[in-house]
């Protein structure tokens, strides 16, 4: 494992077996991870993107010692997740989130107190640490209310509080802002950023591209159990053919026009989509070679043409990669 890597995953495969049927039990095998390779630098926020069922949670569970891989190796902080769980568990924070995973009949403070004991936080520090994390996630005023009275956002905050209570060196956040209102989601992102200043390495899975763009300098896209891309955001942009995108819309285009666009210098990809009577062409391109004026010129036969240029977003990158993988 390289010196600055907090996570290193090699050829990781995970197969799930389930049984169905009432009289005759049939075994169904699902390959959730199909040879994943990944490396996460220490002290960074690493984003793991992917559609539902891509294998993100499976990977997080393996890295956080909650699931064993079928084959391959995974090291966290230089230690094997299958063999060195005793060493790793006190150093790992895991936030799976959701409505479950908390003792709902007791209050937040008691939930944290219980896990503080399970993590061996020194008794002399326990209450101070609990107060500190409750303040950090803005739950101090609700700390003595039963968790079952909490909103989804408050539960999510409590999940995070529990995840950071023992001051882990590495934190796994599985879709931390899912289901949160915009204000709570923003607060959560702020909290995540602040953790980095404390030196925590964070692996974050998310569906929200803007969130990944805002938080994660480095990303991996997981699709159907494979890492289809692993790079910095600029790197990913160039990977899908450029950091700029031009969208042109009109009532249908001729094939020759599309071919002409493809032939323009710097244009790496032209995708076509139908929107009712209109067609949208999306061009990925590198900066500074071809501009909007060149595209307009190529499509001059369309007086109804609307055209706009923007920066290629992580969402564009993500959709291109997932589409590519699917095809």
């Amino acid at each position, binding site marked *: 494992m390289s010196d600055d890597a907090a996570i290193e995953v090699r050829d990781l495969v995970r197969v*799930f077996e389930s049984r169905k049927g009432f009289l005759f039990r049939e075994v169904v095998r699902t390959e959730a991870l199909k040879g994943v390779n990944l490396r996460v630098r220490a002290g960074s926020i690493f984003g793991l993107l992917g559609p539902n069922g891509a294998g993100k949670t499976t990977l997080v569970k393996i890295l956080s010692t909650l*699931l064993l891989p079928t084959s391959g190796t995974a090291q966290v902080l230089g230690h094997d997740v299958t063999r060195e769980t005793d060493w790793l568990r006190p150093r790992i924070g*895991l936030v799976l989130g959701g409505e479950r995973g908390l003792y709902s*009949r007791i209050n937040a403070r008691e939930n944290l*107190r219980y896990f503080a004991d399970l993590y061996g936080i*020194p008794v002399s520090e326990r209450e101070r640490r609990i107060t500190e994390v409750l303040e950090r996630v803005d739950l101090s005023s609700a700390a003595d209310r039963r968790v079952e009275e909490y909103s989804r956002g408050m539960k999510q905050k409590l999940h995070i509080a529990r995840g950071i209570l023992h001051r*882990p060196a590495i934190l796994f956040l599985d879709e931390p802002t899912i289901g949160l209102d915009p204000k709570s989601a923003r607060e959560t992102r702020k909290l995540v950023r602040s953790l980095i200043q404390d*030196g925590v390495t964070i692996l974050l899975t998310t569906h929200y591209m803007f969130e990944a763009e805002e938080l994660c300098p480095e990303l991996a896209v997981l699709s159907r159990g494979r890492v289809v891309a692993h790079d910095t955001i600029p790197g990913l942009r160039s990977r899908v053919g450029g950091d700029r995108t031009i969208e042109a819309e009109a009532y249908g285009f001729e094939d020759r026009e599309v071919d002409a666009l493809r032939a323009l210098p710097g244009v790496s990809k032209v995708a076509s989509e139908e929107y009712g009577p209109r067609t949208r062409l999306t061009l990925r391109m590198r900066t500074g070679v071809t501009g909007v004026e060149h595209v307009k010129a190529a499509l001059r036969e369309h007086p109804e043409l609307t055209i706009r240029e923007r920066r290629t977003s992580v969402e564009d990158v993500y959709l291109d990669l997932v589409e590519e993988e699917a095809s």
Partner: protein
Amino acid sequence: MALAAGEVSRLRTTVASLRLAVLQFMADPQWLVPSMIAPVIFGLVSFELFRGAGPYFLTYAILGAGMMSMWGQTLYGSGWATGQDRVFGTLEPTIQSPSPYLYVVLGRILWNIVIGLVGGGIVYGVVVVAAGGPPALPNPALFVVLFLFVMVTLASVGVLFAAAYVYTRYAGFIQNIGEFAFYVGTGCMFPVILLPFWTNPIALLFPPTWALDALRYVSIPGYTGFGWGWQVDLVGAVVSTAVYAGIAGGIFHRVERHVLEVGNLSEY
């Protein structure tokens, strides 16, 4: 902020788990109802059924109903709490914590022992009221010591039941199906010696069988049981409990490994 891995203490984990069990019980006190009603019913049923069991029928009734009641709390309760961890979704974070789950289970068992003893006390009260007086106990001090020891033996089996609940979400069904078989097998209400001979070695695999036989020896004059006296029973109970305690750690380790392999911790 990072890091500082705290020192995990088994005792502290056990105490934390016991505390959580108390808090959850207090948050949902309706559990008091079955915890109290079941012993009353068991007491009355056994009082009726044992009427013709001779001069010491009261002791039989108290022991039998007390065991039924304590079985429910100590064994069933301990496993059920783990099942609840599955339902609440707290099994995953608990297993993921550095504390061995075995000690979380131990904390719950301690609480269930307390509730079980309360149930035993209720049974005693009910039977005494129904009979109009307490039974004659030849050696009350030894009775109390052995009674507490029976709880320990039940707890040792309870640990393994809890392991089954970690292993599979279906443990509750399996336990329901096997409940009366266990009552029969451990001689909870009647001496195992009454059963066909071939069943006796199986029954002796369970620590409560030994402990209950010892308890009957010291509380029912003329009781023959297995015929080897309460001292041998006590040794058997201690040894089998020690074996259970010894293998509990290994079993939990294996079960934990198994659930991490199959990935069924979040199923309920």
